[in-house]
């Protein structure tokens, strides 16, 4: 694995990040926006592990950061989906453009 240069791994993660950013900017459905956020979080994880592997192979900080990011992503997804389901009950839609009142 060491013959692959670091900037190729970073190319993959950068592409994935901006794919997620594109999805977040263009989608209006809340669940697909959540999927775009998951893509961005994954690209960050790839970055952490690649830097840990190539630049600091004797340390383990990147691995621990990745574990905590995965944990927090799971918590975030569960809270976001609870909010989306609650919104769906009140507005009968999960389109971000139509859910526009703060207090119902």
């Amino acid at each position, binding site marked *: 694995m060491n013959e692959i240069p*670091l900037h190729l791994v970073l190319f*993959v993660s950068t592409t994935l990040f901006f794919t997620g*950013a*594109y999805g977040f900017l263009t989608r209006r459905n809340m669940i*697909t926006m959540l*999927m775009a956020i998951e893509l961005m979080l994954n690209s960050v994880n790839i970055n952490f592990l690649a830097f840990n592997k190539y630049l*600091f*192979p004797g340390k383990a900080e990147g691995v621990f950061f990745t574990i905590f990011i995965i944990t927090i992503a799971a918590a975030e997804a569960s809270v976001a989906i609870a909010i989306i389901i609650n919104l769906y009950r009140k507005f009968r839609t999960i389109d971000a453009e139509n859910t526009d009142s703060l207090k119902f």
Partner: protein
Amino acid sequence: MSLSAAVFCFISLMIIVFGILTVRTSRIFRAAIYLLFTLINVAALYFCLGYEFIAAVQVVVYVGGIVVLILFSLFLTEQSGTRLPEIPYRQALVSYIACIAGFGIIYTIILASDLLPSGQEAKILTMKTIGSKMLSYGEGGYILPFEAVSILLLAALTGSISIAFKTKKNE
């Protein structure tokens, strides 16, 4: 090109293709399935990098947890065959230009910077090391973030239950 380089190229291609399909497809159910494939390929990339434990965590938490959660919420809120509305042309174009520009800037910075290795000896990270470092409160231990994350998870659990809880009318 050696075998591991070929495998890396294949996995990277799959990640990028399925990632783009996730944000471009007009059927919401297919977007969730493409996301599933992207996450599995990211786990394979971790495996290639030599972090087997993280690859396993990725499969268990993302593929087994988050994607299933997303699929369930899709079934609760939409019909599985619904098509998303067409993206307005202007908005798609502006987002596309913004993302390409951002990608160009970031990748130019990456290519211009000399990412030099620190020259340490490579250490094989076993699951035992990860577990003991996670619970150690000495030098380089992670007990404090571990406890903070456990409180956060508890808060997220109770919070999501109380948000999604259906209140009965006329009570």
